[in-house]
């Protein structure tokens, strides 16, 4: 940024107005506690946490919970209905559906999580620059974000998978990249609001460098909204991953993944509906949980209304 002129043009590389602008706003811990209390008062939050918790727990503990191998073929046990031996039935290759569901959750949820992390980190960086840069750089980013938002996000993901070729890594990258513009736009909007705050003016006036202002003053302000948006985007990411898996663009068989398992079950709908019911329910309930939790978090973070 340009050096301020006049009496304020003091060379000062440390925090601007130590103790005032450089410090975190007072009572951050209190705010978190308040938001947490508001969150836990909502029944939707509890339901969401339960559903998401079960999905995560099942995926993480899959090696201990699964009673069969998720990929081992047993032609003696083809398309068996749910029974005490196979509580969710077996698929066309005689593989235990319950074990495949547990391991499938690992694939689906891990890809969705990587995608959301990628989108929120890259989107935050992009949004910070777009919101803070007053020069051509910021303007370029803004137009780029607007352009990417002109694509339906699943379409953008499909294009990227089309270029990279199907596969798990491509899937995570595609779903993540496709969600970047949503984060970038939100962060940019938040930055534009924070930028006019007195403590930012004070930092600028005292000659703090751009990078310092970005990291110390603007970044802390966007973390809460980014986390809130990330919570809302998790459900959408799971849906996108499962959709791409359903289209045959994700996990290569026999690796279990909820979307591709559902597609495999489609052929046996008449004789063995449980093969697609399992993954269908798993996706629906997990996305439902993520949506309820995301809703509860964003309403707990919203100022004012309780």
């Amino acid at each position, binding site marked *: 940024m340009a050096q301020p002129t006049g009496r304020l043009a003091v060379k000062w590389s440390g925090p601007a107005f130590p103790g005032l602008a450089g410090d975190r706003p007072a009572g951050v811990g209190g705010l978190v506690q308040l938001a947490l209390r508001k969150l836990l008062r909502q029944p939707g939050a509890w339901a969401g946490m339960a559903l998401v918790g079960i999905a995560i727990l099942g995926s993480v503990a899959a090696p201990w919970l699964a009673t069969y191998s998720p990929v081992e073929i047993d032609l003696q046990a083809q398309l068996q209905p749910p029974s005490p031996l196979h509580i969710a039935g077996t698929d066309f290759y005689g593989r235990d559906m319950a074990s495949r569901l547990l391991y499938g959750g690992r694939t689906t949820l891990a890809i969705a999580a990587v995608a959301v992390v990628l989108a929120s980190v890259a989107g935050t960086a992009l949004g910070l620059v777009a919101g803070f840069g007053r020069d051509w750089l910021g303007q370029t980013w803004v137009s780029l974000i607007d352009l990417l938002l002109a694509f*339906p996000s699943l379409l953008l993901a499909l294009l990227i998978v*089309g270029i*990279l070729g199907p596969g798990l890594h491509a899937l995570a990258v595609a779903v993540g990249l496709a969600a970047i513009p949503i984060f970038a736009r939100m962060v940019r909007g938040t930055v534009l609001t924070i930028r006019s705050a007195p403590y930012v003016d004070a930092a600028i006036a005292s000659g703090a460098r751009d990078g310092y202002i970005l990291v110390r003053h603007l970044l802390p302000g966007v973390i809460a909204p980014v986390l809130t948006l990330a919570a809302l985007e998790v459900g959408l990411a799971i849906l996108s991953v*499962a959709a791409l898996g359903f289209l045959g663009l994700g996990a290569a068989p026999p690796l279990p993944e909820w979307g591709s398992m559902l597609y495999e079950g489609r052929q046996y709908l008449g004789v063995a509906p449980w093969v697609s019911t399992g993954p269908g329910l798993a996706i629906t309930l997990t*996305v439902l949980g993520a949506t309820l939790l995301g809703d509860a978090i964003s309403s707990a973070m919203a100022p004012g209304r309780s």
Partner: protein
Amino acid sequence: MWSYLGRRCLTAFMTLLGIATVVFAVVRLLPGDPAQVMLARSGASPLAVAALRSELGLDRPLAVQYLDWLTALARGDLGRSLFNGRAVVDLIREQLPYTLELALAAFAVALPLGLTLGAVGARWPNSAAGRAAMVVSVAGVALPVFWSGLLLIWVFSVQLAWLPPAGADSWRALVMPALALGFATAGPIGRLTRASLMEVSVQPYVVVAHAKGLPERQVFVNHALRNAAVPLLTIAGLELGFLLGGAVVTETLFSRPGLGKLLVDAILWRDLPLVQGVVLVIASLYVITNAAVDVGAGWLSPQAGWQ
């Protein structure tokens, strides 16, 4: 008014140009060699890869490739499919009507359903009806199209044998795809409708209308609903993007012809010219519809800049 229309058309044109640029950039700038990816499955020799590179023009400078891409687009030329050698434009023209049919039918389900769910949810937020409306909306969000569609097939094709599970020969084949895709789109529309109605309901003019003793119903219809109409129209336009993305999945599930099926096949065949052509056409449809929606919203609301 004409200047507003002109400005909006110019923005739409610039966005279309930008979309063409993004598609070009994604194809050329992502790591990995498209020619290599396309031939990966057949395990082609380096010589074949080099030949394909020069056939696609990938060996020329980026600026030249970009100019060629734009001039070809201006002539309405999207290249040839690598899979069957036919012009990409022709392939798209054959499939487009099926996708438009599905999109329109699904939108005809989604819009009234979503608006009703949102309006009921906002009008009686604490009643059983309002809560039920929001539960249905969330279900619409959480139920993936490929799962709700499968449930429909199970009930209406497998069990009752009323409707064909696949194809696009008659209106009967359109019923289930339109319902599945429409319901999935109604979910987000319902949630956003409720949110924007709730936002309007705390505005000063609504509070004043309440304060001067107008009946609840009249305030809702005349003050809240009317003022929310413009954002609602915009929301509906934006959800069209979701619908176009969902059409890809819906067409695969119901084995329906259409742009989505074409795109998925193109990706599986590694047919790069076809992939970029279909993506460009779907994205352009989305941009043009949203521009039309914006003009419509401007017509409804004098503040939006018709003057």
